[in-house]
């Protein structure tokens, strides 16, 4: 059977994306002019969010091969398209490199000299090694990304099973590599904002958020495509139900990990650990912390629990947007307190300075998605598992 894109994704998508990107970029520029330090922190939030979606999506692609899932095959391209921002990561990191001094306390030579703890961590936390590590992550991610995408798109031509086999092997190697690089990436870029503090579960925490973001963006785009008639009519409730379930499940996983981190530090009650939470509890940060609990976990949990929500496209769409916003809030909660604390503010800051960054993200992904969809099929048309995936029923 010949399965091709029925319609091509309208040029409006990239136009709107472009407009958003421009507005966002202008606002971001203004934000840098107005308050350079604050803007660097906002930029880091944006950057981590992009990594979440890029790597989360690549992780989902790998996961599908790893476990041999059928149901998600019709959607794999969507995740592939989203992960196509990976080559850009190296460009996008430049502002962070420029803002190292504003962001990371451990880059202050004079502070490290007088600080026994930072001195002890110096063999790991120093700028040279930091750049080397970032370089390693980018190269590794890029190579795997190219590998997966090449095999997947080549299969569109002849449907050879060998590509599936190759990607399965690749995903077996990628699974541990993914976990390790993502863990260290989270430690380097986010945890080292507070170089005195550490949590051994931090990497898993970020990973949990990443996978939620990966599933939420996949769900959001699939629902939008479905509603606009781009997807095969055989894709129905059972597919979306499964997607909703995965989103729901990994969101619980996030809560589980977040709680595990909290309860251990709360129990031990050692000042060198608890100050990190105290920073997120001082002033009105308290309400952000409590809000995160409800917004990221309690409410989505209750809303996504009934089956009817997971099979209703509109509600699913709302929930996937919700979880993406929740992940953004999560990153804000992880990163911003370092800034407000340094700036002597006793509460979160939010204003026009922050608004440009999400626009840039949305714009970037819209443009990239549309560009990739012009070059490739929206479905892996010759994938041997596609037929089974389309006919999937619970």
């Amino acid at each position, binding site marked *: 059977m010949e399965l091709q894109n029925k319609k091509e994704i309208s040029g409006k998508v990239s136009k709107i994306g472009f407009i958003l990107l421009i507005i966002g970029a202008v606002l971001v520029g203004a934000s840098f002019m107005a308050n350079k330090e604050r803007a660097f922190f906002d930029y880091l939030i944006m950057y981590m969010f992009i990594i979440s979606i890029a790597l989360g999506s690549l992780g989902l692609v790998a996961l599908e091969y790893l476990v041999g899932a059928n149901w998600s095959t019709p959607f794999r391209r969507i995740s592939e398209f989203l992960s196509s921002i990976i080559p850009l990561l190296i460009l996008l990191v430049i502002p962070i490199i420029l803002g190292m001094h504003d962001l990371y306390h451990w880059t202050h030579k004079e502070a490290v000299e007088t600080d026994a703890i930072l001195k002890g961590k110096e063999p790991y936390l120093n700028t040279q090694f930091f750049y080397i590590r970032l370089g390693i992550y980018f190269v590794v991610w890029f190579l795997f990304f190219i590998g997966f995408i090449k095999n997947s798109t080549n299969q569109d031509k002849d449907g050879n099973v060998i590509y599936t086999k190759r990607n399965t092997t690749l995903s077996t190697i990628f699974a541990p590599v993914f976990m390790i690089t993502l863990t260290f990436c989270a430690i380097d870029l986010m945890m080292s904002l507070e170089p005195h503090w550490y949590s051994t579960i931090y990497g898993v925490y970020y990973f949990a958020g990443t996978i939620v973001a990966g599933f939420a963006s996949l769900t959001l785009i699939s629902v939008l495509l479905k509603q606009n008639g781009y997807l095969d009519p055989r894709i129905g409730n059972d597919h979306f139900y499964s997607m909703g379930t995965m989103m729901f499940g990994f969101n619980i996983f996030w809560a589980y990990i977040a*709680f595990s981190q*909290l*309860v251990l530090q*709360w*129990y031990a*009650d050692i000042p060198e650990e608890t100050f990190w939470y105290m920073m997120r509890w001082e002033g009105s940060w308290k309400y952000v912390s409590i809000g995160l609990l409800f917004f990221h976990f309690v409410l989505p949990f209750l809303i996504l*629990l*009934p*089956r*009817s929500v997971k099979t209703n496209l509109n509600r699913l769409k709302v929930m996937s947007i919700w979880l993406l916003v929740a992940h953004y809030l999560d990153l804000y909660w992880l990163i911003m307190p370092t800034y407000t604390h340094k700036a002597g503010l006793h509460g979160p800051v939010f204003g026009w300075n922050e608004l440009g960054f999400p626009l840039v993200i949305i714009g970037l992904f819209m443009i990239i998605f549309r560009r990739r969809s012009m070059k490739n099929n929206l479905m892996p048309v010759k994938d041997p598992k596609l037929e089974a995936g389309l006919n*999937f*029923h*619970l």
Partner: protein
Amino acid sequence: MIKKIVNIFKKVNEDQNPWKDEKSDKVYAVAALFNTPDEIIHAAEKVSNSGYNDFDVNTPYPVHGMDDAMKLKPTRLGWFSFALGLTGTLTALGMIFYMNGIDYNNIIGGKPFFNFPSSVPVTFALTILFTGLTTVGVLIALFSKLPWLNNPLLDSEYSKATSQDKFGIYIKSTDSKFNQSEIETMFSSLGSSAVSLIYDSKVNEKKIKTPIFETGFIKILIGVGVGTAVITYFTLNWVIFQMPFDWMVIQPKVLPQEKSKIFADGFGMREPVPGTVARGFMPYEYKGMPDSLVKLLANPLPVNEKTLLTGQKRYDTYCSPCHGNYGKGDSRLRGQFPNPPTLMSEKVLNWTDGNIYHIITNGQNVMASYAKQISRDDRWAIVHYIRALQRSQNAKDSDLN
């Protein structure tokens, strides 16, 4: 051994099964077997489309798409689970709140008596437990219609096949459209590999006995109980102290009463830094002083219901094991310990509050100091309570007014 157990079960089964070989000639259902999941989906679709609704499907494993094919309504089971899961959550929180927060306050790691974080794991576990058990319970009660232990399908070739590698469907004779020959032809036209009739069971009332009271079964039950107990005992008392399970047990930390090389005097336990006071503890300046000086200490607490209740609580917890519930020195410890004296003696009656407080704080001979366990205010509350006990047992007529 295993063979023996299996035989016991077999025997129980054969002797006890009141339905064995007792089929009536009333048709219960028409059943058909199919070889592949696709065939069974097709058959289920056909049956539900033909307007039957009293039918069911048996497969060796869950078949995708069956819900749609059978036109099943979404199950309500989820709501039961949710409701009872919520009950579990509230039970756990309520239990912890009452036990830790109200009934039996214990300071653990300096945390508030009731606190949310440490309640979460138990709450989580109880929620899962309630949800799991009720889901299974409701499933059994609603859908398997317990306590009815038999189903005409059992002991049929049909059931044997569907629990191995065949996919079966049957339409019950209670269906409004039931017509035996019509259904048989429909099944064969669908390509069934075997169409059969299932007959209702004829129950032999006399034979119905509860197999739980069989000696064989009881023997197994006792065996399992003893076995579990022995294994648990050895696991907890021996296995966990062997390599590598002891890796977490032995930790390079100083335990109470242990030596430590870190300090010059070799003691692991330390005195507080001179001039400091632990939180919540006021130093007692009258340590070891004679009664005459102590006498003058006045009870700072007012006598009211609250202090008396606290005093009662603390007294019952800390003092009553020795001095008895009413302070008469008649506790169950009598004879096993230097006899604790009565607190109703002339001597104690004539003491000032300060004297009693001094003894709780300082101790006297074999009675140790309770200053570390009981806060200052609570000690004074106990004194009030002892006074109340004394008065109640030497009540004068005027007290009635």
